């Protein structure tokens, strides 16, 4: 079939604006819109007529604004309010026998999906996951059996399509019970590939997923795009810590200075950036241990930069304090990366924390005490 035009004709634009206006004023023209959208949503490029109403047709190309929105979300800017209206959308010119994909209403998720669908004619059913991605929304129950069944009913999908099969992302499976959905709605669920990039091949091979398509990966790039958020999350506790140290300095028991400052920041970067990036190559299995190792390297580096062991600029007591504190700081931030990883289990994280958290508490306390003692010696 012909690839759909991605540019809006003036006529369509006018029609869309008019409809949006009608929606706002409550005036209804002959055909109502199944999924409302804003005139500012420039990724909507037309409308598809169905027996139930008009369905917004979306572009498979990301605009500069879409990309910029994605970058901001990765850095935590407006991340919790980056969503689109749930409902039914069209890609290309889908017909009654076209496939149906189901996804979340996090705009970043939706964008990652539609950019892989160029040249295809499909329906996309967007669930209300409160702007959370598919995997995380399954954990919160928003990408789940109930929402799926009710969304199918509300969009009257059974009146639009002539078959009873819907394709869910495989990572939606922890929230959805396929046999329950079938019982409650009559729709049969096929779990598609993990990654949107594989959808085209999945469909053209008659909805057969290869083992690679079913496997969750965690590549260096996957980890890289997650690190900004790790840094953003680490800033808040760090500012509190700096505040405490500043007050200790003021009252005269804190000897904290520039070296401590960059030593801490380095440990933070080790835990939040370097450990995640180097994850599979760092020895050990527990994230906290991996972070502790990179932090130890950093602690030794700080001491060497400051002249150890030949011409030290500070006392051995302080050097020992760094070796106690910095690896634990890095270990803490690395441990928090378990939540962003794609392969840690609850039981596993709990097990490593039972050892790691007490160890961190003891070493950090001991290190800070040494620093304070050192300032009086």
């Amino acid at each position: 079939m012909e690839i759909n035009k991605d540019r809006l004709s003036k006529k369509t634009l006018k029609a869309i604006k008019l409809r949006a206006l009608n929606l706002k004023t409550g005036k209804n023209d002959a055909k109502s819109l199944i999924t409302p959208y804003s005139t500012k949503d420039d990724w909507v490029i037309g409308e598809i007529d169905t027996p139930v109403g008009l369905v917004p047709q979306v572009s498979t190309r990301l605009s500069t604004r879409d990309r910029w929105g994605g970058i901001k979300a990765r850095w935590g800017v407006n991340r919790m309010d980056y969503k689109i209206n749930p409902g039914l959308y069209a890609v290309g010119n889908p017909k009654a026998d076209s496939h149906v994909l189901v996804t979340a209403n996090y705009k970043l998720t939706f964008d990652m999906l539609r950019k892989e669908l160029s040249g295809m004619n499909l329906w996309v059913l967007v669930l209300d996951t409160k702007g959370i991605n598919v995997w995380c929304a399954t954990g919160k129950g928003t990408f789940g059996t109930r929402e799926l069944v009710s969304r199918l009913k509300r969009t009257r999908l059974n009146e639009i399509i002539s078959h009873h099969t819907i394709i869910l992302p495989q990572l939606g499976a922890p929230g959805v019970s396929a046999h329950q959905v079938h019982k409650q709605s009559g729709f049969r669920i096929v779990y598609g590939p993990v990654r949107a990039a594989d959808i085209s091949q999945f469909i053209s091979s008659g909805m057969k997923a290869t083992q690679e398509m079913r496997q969750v990966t965690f590549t260096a790039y996957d980890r890289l795009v997650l690190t900004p958020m790790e840094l953003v999350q680490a800033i808040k506790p760090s500012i509190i810590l700096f505040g405490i140290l500043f007050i200790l300095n003021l009252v005269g028991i804190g000897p904290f200075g520039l070296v401590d400052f960059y030593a801490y920041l380095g440990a933070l970067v080790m835990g939040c950036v370097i450990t995640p990036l180097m994850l599979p190559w760092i020895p050990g299995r527990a994230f906290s241990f991996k972070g502790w190792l990179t932090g130890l390297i950093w602690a030794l580096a700080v001491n060497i930069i400051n002249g150890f062991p030949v011409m030290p600029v500070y006392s051995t007591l302080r050097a020992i304090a760094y070796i106690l504190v910095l690896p634990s700081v890095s270990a803490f931030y690395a441990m928090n990366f378990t939540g962003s990883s794609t392969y840690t289990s609850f039981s596993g994280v709990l097990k490593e924390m039972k050892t790691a958290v007490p160890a961190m508490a003891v070493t950090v306390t001991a290190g800070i005490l040494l620093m304070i003692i050192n300032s009086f010696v």
Partner: protein
Amino acid sequence: MKHRYLKNVSTLQLNADKCIGCGRCTEVCPHQVFEMQDRGCAVRARDLCMECGACVKNCPAGALEVKPGVGCAAAIITGWLTGSEPACGCSNDSSGGCC
């Protein structure tokens, strides 16, 4: 390079007597923990299990069990501090950057 997490921790349980051999678990598992054998499904690699619960939720025969939970340290810390069940609290900004 393959990621490997802690061994012998998963709470995954398969009741082979109940298995009807539909193969749904092999379809939904993101880490290929299961494989289909002549008599139904079998646990191939328990240590790869991340306890996401996809298999349990989609097993029409109720043959699978797992204690579901999030493998997220920030969520567990929040759970300890607030005395609640560890849950992915990503919608408020107080926990990790996971979701």
